[in-house]
């Protein structure tokens, strides 16, 4: 988790834990009202980007938490919540903190709003001061969670104002804020019709410049892309009628050597379809060729922001849109629709937008927007009378995000190349509209014989590079095999110079003939004393789920090879790594591992569970999944 910056006096921190976006919407509203009330510093963070050990240093925190399933906290709250429950923290740990909790739940399910209730009690037990009692939003209420949020926010501002008046100098604005008053956009855009003397032409610099002035990317601090790669190989790994399309990509840097290590992840900034970008600009009646400068408006006119940006060169509007504003893949937030309603001149459109942003229309908005993966461009095309000023578009259009892929090559074997194993994503929405993954589709369309530029950053992944002497049990069905191709390649190279420990690898796919990714590669390493060979104490086992009437998965193979798995785990320092794109697979695999230990090893279940937990703590049992 990223450490939070040191708290400024009078900062209000809003921490949210959202699953489907409702808690973010509610949290954003808290922030807007605080800003309207003149709060000098408000920060909005997801709970999983805030380090809980920094909590004692905060003065004022508002928590907005959703409920999942049977009273569980959302995924983004799990780590934070675990930390808060440590026994040793003590009754005075948060004695300097003033807080308030708002929960979102549904009383027709059991275990109503449990995360909010438990969080509120725990904070009290840790010595924090409650600004007002917890608010519990209920979907069963005729106005949804807003039914509870409206009065709760009112009470919050009033109480806060009494405790610390300078936190909300314009409290009347916060309390009487009405949805019908349109505030100001957060940024100022200055337009230049002709290129300035020093126009940036280097693509790396362009990317860095554009993304550093985007308000939606404010906390990202990416800097320039580390690498600008060229695709030299684009190979389809799947065959036949397989509705899966998995590619093997090889990327190279034409100018510089690439430095990376086993287990690393490549973050890629995808290109958007240029004609879609043009359509967006045309729809918004903007001039693609003009140059712009973006500055954050701040309450304090002497803030650093305005100084810094005046030294920065303007950038072409079209470039800014293409590099930072996601107009063809991400869906806009509810607040985007709210601002749209202010700028709709057609009565029907205005009415529909107001309905969508009302508590009654929230479910319909969810069906229309999130479930259909509506893009900003699509939404604007369905509400043609809406003409949102560019400042608002800049502020509210979802930012173009980087996509991360596990690297599937070893730098020992391919010192100047990075290989990727990418599934080209496509799906159908409830209304049967076909959607395509932006990045995977773009990469799949790149031609190695043409020049292309792929802006990338290298990050450490969660699977650490194992020392050659560590026996490995690897489980990676489908594209989960990508990081393990790296491990096997690397270990094979290392085994030339020194003795290496064996690897037991479980792979899974649908059909031997269709999607057996890297078949030759694995088989080669499983023969002739290779790192996956039985002779070396290793093994390679594949589950073809659809090649026979009954389903066979990696967990079934693990159980089948129980003796071998047990043997590996008994070796000193053995590690288990699991990777893949399914959310159920890791749980199924864990169950299979436990079964193997209990049945083949004869150990009692309780001991086995404790041992696996210990293994997790020691970094020897790691699960890396992606969606």
């Amino acid at each position, binding site marked *: 988790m990223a450490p939070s910056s040191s708290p400024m006096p009078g900062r209000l921190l809003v921490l949210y834990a959202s*699953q*489907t976006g*409702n808690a973010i919407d509610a949290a954003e509203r808290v922030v807007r009202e605080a800003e309207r009330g003149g709060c000098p510093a408000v920060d909005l963070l997801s709970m999983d980007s805030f380090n809980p050990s920094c909590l004692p240093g905060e003065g004022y925190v508002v928590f907005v938490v*959703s409920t*999942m*399933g049977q009273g*569980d906290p*959302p995924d983004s709250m799990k780590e934070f919540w675990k930390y808060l*429950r*440590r*026994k*040793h923290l003590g009754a005075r740990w948060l004695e300097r903190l003033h807080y308030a909790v708002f929960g979102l739940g*549904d009383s027709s*399910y059991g*275990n109503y709003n*449990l995360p909010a*209730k438990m969080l509120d*009690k*725990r904070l009290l*037990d840790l010595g924090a001061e409650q600004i007002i009692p917890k608010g519990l939003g209920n*979907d069963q209420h005729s106005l949804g*969670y807003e039914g509870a949020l409206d009065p709760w926010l009112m009470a919050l501002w009033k109480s806060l104002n009494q405790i610390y008046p300078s936190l909300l100098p314009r409290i009347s604005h916060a309390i009487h804020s009405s949805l019908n008053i349109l505030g100001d956009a957060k940024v100022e855009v200055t337009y230049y019709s002709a290129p300035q003397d020093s126009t940036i032409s280097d693509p790396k610099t362009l990317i860095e410049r554009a993304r550093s002035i985007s308000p939606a990317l404010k906390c990202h601090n990416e800097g320039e892309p580390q690498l600008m790669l060229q695709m030299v190989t684009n190979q389809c790994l799947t065959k036949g009628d397989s509705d899966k399309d998995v590619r093997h990509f090889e990327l190279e840097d034409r100018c510089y050597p690439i430095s990376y290590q086993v287990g690393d992840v490549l973050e890629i900034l995808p*290109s958007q*379809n240029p004609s879609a970008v043009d359509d967006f600009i045309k729809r918004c009646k903007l001039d693609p060729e003009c140059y712009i400068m973006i500055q954050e408006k701040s309450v304090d006119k002497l803030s650093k922001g305005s100084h810094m940006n005046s030294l920065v060169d303007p950038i072409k509007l079209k470039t800014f849109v293409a590099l930072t504003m996601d107009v063809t893949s991400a869906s806009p937030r509810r607040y985007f629709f709210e601002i749209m309603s202010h700028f709709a001149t057609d009565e*029907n459109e205005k009415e529909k937008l107001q309905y*969508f942003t009302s508590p009654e229309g929230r*479910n319909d908005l*969810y069906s*229309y927007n999130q479930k*259909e993966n509506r*893009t900003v*461009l*699509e939404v604007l095309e*369905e*509400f043609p009378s809406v003409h949102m000023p560019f400042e608002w578009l800049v502020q509210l259009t979802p930012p173009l995000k980087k996509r991360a892929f596990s690297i599937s090559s070893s730098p020992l074997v391919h010192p100047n190349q990075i290989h990727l194993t990418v599934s080209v994503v496509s799906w159908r929405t*409830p*209304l*049967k*509209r*076909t959607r*395509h993954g*932006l990045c995977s589709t*773009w990469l799949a*369309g790149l031609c190695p014989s043409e020049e292309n530029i792929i802006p990338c950053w290298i990050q450490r992944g969660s699977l650490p590079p194992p020392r050659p002497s560590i026996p490995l049990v690897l489980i990676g069905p489908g594209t989960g095999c990508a990081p393990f191709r790296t491990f096997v390649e690397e270990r094979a190279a290392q085994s030339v110079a020194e003795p290496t420990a064996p690897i037991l690898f479980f792979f899974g796919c649908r059909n031997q003939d269709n999607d057996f990714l890297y078949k030759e590669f694995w088989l080669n390493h499983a023969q002739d004393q290779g790192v996956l060979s*039985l*002779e070396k*104490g290793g093994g390679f086992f594949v589950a073809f789920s659809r090649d026979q009437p009954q389903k066979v998965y990696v967990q079934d193979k693990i159980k089948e090879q129980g*003796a071998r798995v047990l*043997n590996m*785990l*008994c070796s000193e320092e053995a590690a288990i790594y699991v990777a893949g794109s399914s959310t159920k697979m890791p749980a199924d695999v864990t169950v299979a591992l436990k079964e193997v*230990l209990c049945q083949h*090893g*004869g*150990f009692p279940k309780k*001991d086995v*569970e*404790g*041992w696996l937990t210990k293994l997790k*703590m020691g970094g020897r049992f790691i699960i890396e999944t992606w969606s």
Partner: protein
Amino acid sequence: MKEAESFGDQLVAEISRVLKAGGTVLVQSFTASSDHKPNNYIERQLLMGGFVEVQSKSTGSHDGVQSVTIKSRKPSWSMGSSSPLKKAIKQALPETEIDDDGDELIDKDSLLTQDDLKKLQRPVVGGCEMGATKKARKACKNCSCGRAEAEQKVEKLGLTAEQIDNPVSACGSCGLGDAFRCGTCPYRGLAPFKLGQKVTLSNNFLSADI
């Protein structure tokens, strides 16, 4: 052993059965000096049969015939014996929930009121955020109640050629876009269009062709 191939699975399994845990088996093989394959085969058989610490040693050569002794051990981690794993598992921490840094955590239930505890429902079932994601219920794969048939009927109400070529709308909203269409509108899922003009079916397919 004169012929390595006779060292088959059944023989290995039988040796394993009669041998005590921790016991050792010695296999002596006589082969032509240049031929290593039979020994590899025997080693592999032992490994697959669950034996550990397989070691080969050359024990003499006579008249061009190599004698090799292959030694291996039946693992000793059956119930009751202590192996490194068994020790590790015994020493593992008790079943209380532990944080990644090894700290013990408080019991969640202690944070709830009596009222909440009474209404508590277990077990945990993974699911979606409540409320907004009321998913449409679909027929099961082996549906016998007729729901599947009903769903099939709705699906088949696709667009006719006439509706594509010359779209008309009694309500006037069909051409407006999904935000304005009724739940049963046959044009749902399509981009907005003008009534009377032929409908394009490309569904806002924004692919990234560069």
